[in-house]
C-alpha cells in the first residue's frame, strides 16, 4: 500500500481534541474565516465544492456540491432555508461519524457554518441518534464554546453572516436516517418517510428549502475550502475523491475506524489495514458498505473500493462499513440477523416493505433453524424482486431486498445444505439466553 496523506483523523491524536483551544491550535476555524473575510460569495463556495468532486459519505454517494446547488434562488424564493445534518448513524457496521463527533466536534461545527453560508441557511439542525450520548454532549459543548467565541449566532466574526446551530436527539429508529424520515422526526412526528417529489431542496423542514448531509460529508467542507479543490481531487480516484472513513468489523484481527484513500482493493484493506482474518482462518464473505449492501463472496476480495467499482462488481460502496465473515460463519444466521433488523426497522407505511421484510426474515430464520423448505430460496428471490427497486416510498425495502438477492445468488449451497440436513452445521453451540415470554 502506497503512502497517502491523511487529514480526516489527524487532529484527534491531540489531548482534548474536542475543545476549542486545541481545535484552534490545530488550525481550526481558518476555513470559515477565509470564506467570510475574503469574502467568498455563497455561489463561489458551492462552485468549489462541486469542483472538488466530493460525494456524500452517508451511503448514496451523491455529489455534494450539486446537492447544495439544488437550493432555490434566494432572490426568487424568500422562505427560510435549513441544513439538516444526518448524525443518525445506524446502518449496521457503520461507526465512523461517532469518531468525528466525539473527538473532533468543532470540525463538524465549522463544516455546518460553511454549508449554511453557501446555501444561505439560517440554521442547521444536527440530528443525532439518541444512543450517541457522548457525541451529543461533545457537539453541544462545541456549539456552546463556538457561540461564546462569536463563531455561532448573530454576526459571526463581526460580519453580517448569522447562523444558528441546534442539536436534536433522535430516539432509536433506523428509518430516521432516511432524509425525509429524519425531517418528519425533527418536526416531532413518527419517522415516516415522505413521498418524493417534492425533494427536500424544494420543500423540506417546515415546508422550507432544506438540504440533508451526512456528518462526514459536512466535515470535509472546511478542508476543501481551505486547501482547494485541486488538493482534494489529487486524492483518491477520478470519480471518488478525497479520503473516507472505513469502519471495519467482524472476523478480523484489527477492527477499527480507519481513514483511507479511495482506490485500494478490499484485499489490501483486509490484509494491510485490518490485520487479516482472525484466528488464522480463511475469508468466507464480506459486506463492503454496511448490511444493506450485497454480501460479496471471498472470490470478490480484489474489488477496488470506490463507489463505481463496487457497483460494477454487483454491490455498493454504501457507508464503507466493511463487515468480514470467516469460514466458520453461518450465512443463514447472518441473513437471519440482517433481515431481523430490516423487519424491526420498517416504518410500516408501504405494504411491500412492512410485509416483505417480515416474510424475508421469517424465511431466513426458519432456514437457519433447519426448518427451511426447498422452495424457500426461489420464494426469497421472488419476494425480494417484488419489494425493490423503486417500488416503495423510501429505500428501506431495497436495503432488505439487495442483501437477500446477493446472499441467495452467492451462497445458495449454504442455504440448501441447511435445508437438506434439517440443521445448520455452522450454528452456534452455546445455550441461548432466557427470553421473557411475549417480549419483543
Amino acid at each position: 500500500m502506497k503512502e497517502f496523506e491523511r487529514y480526516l483523523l489527524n487532529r484527534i491524536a491531540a489531548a482534548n481534541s474536542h475543545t476549542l483551544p486545541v481545535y484552534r491550535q490545530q488550525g481550526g476555524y481558518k476555513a470559515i474565516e477565509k470564506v467570510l473575510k475574503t469574502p467568498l460569495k455563497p455561489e463561489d463556495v458551492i462552485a468549489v465544492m462541486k469542483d472538488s468532486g466530493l460525494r456524500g459519505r452517508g451511503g448514496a454517494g451523491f455529489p455534494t456540491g450539486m446537492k447544495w446547488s439544488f437550493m432555490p434562488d434566494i432572490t426568487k424564493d424568500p422562505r427560510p432555508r435549513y441544513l439538516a445534518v444526518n448524525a443518525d448513524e445506524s446502518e449496521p457496521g457503520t461507526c465512523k461519524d461517532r469518531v468525528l463527533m466525539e473527538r473532533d466536534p468543532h470540525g463538524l461545527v465549522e463544516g455546518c457554518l460553511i454549508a449554511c453560508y453557501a446555501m444561505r441557511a439560517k440554521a442547521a439542525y444536527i440530528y443525532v441518534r439518541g444512543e450517541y450520548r457522548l457525541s451529543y454532549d461533545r457537539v453541544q459543548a462545541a456549539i456552546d464554546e463556538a457561540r461564546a467565541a462569536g463563531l455561532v449566532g448573530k454576526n459571526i466574526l463581526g460580519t453580517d453572516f448569522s447562523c444558528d446551530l441546534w442539536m436534536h436527539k433522535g430516539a432509536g429508529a433506523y428509518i430516521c436516517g432516511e432524509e425525509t424520515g429524519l425531517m418528519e422526526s425533527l418536526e416531532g412526528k413518527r419517522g415516516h418517510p415522505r413521498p418524493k417529489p417534492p425533494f427536500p431542496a424544494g420543500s423540506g423542514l417546515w415546508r422550507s428549502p432544506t438540504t440533508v448531509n451526512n456528518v462526514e460529508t459536512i466535515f470535509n467542507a472546511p478542508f476543501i475550502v481551505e486547501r482547494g479543490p485541486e488538493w482534494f481531487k489529487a486524492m483518491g480516484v477520478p470519480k471518488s475523491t478525497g479520503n473516507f472513513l472505513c469502519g471495519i468489523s467482524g472476523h478480523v484481527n484489527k477492527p477499527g475506524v480507519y481513514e483511507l484513500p479511495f482506490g485500494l482493493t478490499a484485499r489490501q484493506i483486509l490484509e494491510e489495514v485490518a490485520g487479516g482474518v482472525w484466528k488464522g482462518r480463511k475469508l468466507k464473505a464480506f459486506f463492503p458498505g454496511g448490511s444493506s449492501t450485497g454480501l460479496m463472496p471471498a472470490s470478490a476480495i480484489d474489488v477496488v473500493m470506490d463507489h463505481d467499482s463496487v457497483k460494477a462488481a454487483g454491490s455498493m460502496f454504501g457507508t464503507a462499513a466493511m463487515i468480514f465473515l470467516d469460514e466458520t460463519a453461518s450465512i443463514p444466521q447472518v441473513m437471519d440477523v440482517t433481515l431481523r433488523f430490516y423487519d424491526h426497522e420498517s416504518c410500516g407505511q408501504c405494504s411491500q416493505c412492512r410485509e416483505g421484510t417480515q416474510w424475508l426474515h421469517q424465511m431466513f430464520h426458519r432456514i437457519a433453524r433447519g426448518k427451511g423448505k426447498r422452495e424457500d430460496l426461489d420464494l426469497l428471490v421472488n419476494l425480494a424482486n417484488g419489494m425493490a427497486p423503486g417500488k416503495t416510498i423510501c429505500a428501506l425495502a431495497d436495503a432488505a431486498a439487495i442483501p437477500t438477492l446477493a446472499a441467495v445468488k452467492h451462497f445458495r449451497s449454504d442455504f440448501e445444505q441447511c435445508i437438506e440436513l434439517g440443521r445448520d452445521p455452522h450454528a452456534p453451540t452455546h445455550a441461548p439466553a432466557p427470553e421473557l415470554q411475549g417480549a419483543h
Partner: protein
Amino acid sequence: MALSPKLVREFDELVTHYPEKRAGLIPALHRCQEENGGWLSPEAIEDLAAYFELEPVEVFGVASFYPMFRMTPRGKHLVSVCHNISCTLRGAEELLSHVCKVTGAPVGGTSSDGEFTVVRVECQGACANAPMFDLDGVYHEDLDAAKAEQILRRAREGAKA
C-alpha cells in the same frame, strides 16, 4: 400530576430552537423519561400533550414509534445488549446469556430484585468494538464475560460503572 416547573422552564427554552413548537416533542419525551425513572407513564404522556397542545393519543403515537421510549416501568439499571451483525459475529449471544445469568433478568424482563432490566437492541454504532452493551446510557465496548460481569456487579453495588 403536571410537568415540574424545572421541565417547563427547559421546554420553554427548547421550543425556541424551532419555528414550530411541536419539533421539541421528541427531545421533551427524552427528558420526561429521564426524570421519570426511565419510562413514560400515561400521566407523562398527558402532561406532554397538554404542553404541546396535542391529543394524548398523538403523543403516544409518536413515543411508541421509537424504540428508545419505554411505556412500561423498568429496573433500576437498563442493560441494552446489541445483537446486530457485527456484535453477533464476535459473541453477542454469548454475552447476552451471560448478562442474563449475572443480572438474573430474562431478555426483555426485569430481575426479581428490581435491579436490572435486560433488552436486545439493534446496531448501536459500536461495530468496531464488538460486542457491547449500553448500561444506563454509557457504552461498554470490547466486552467479554469477565469484563461484563465486573461492570454489572459494580452497577449493582452502586459504584460508578
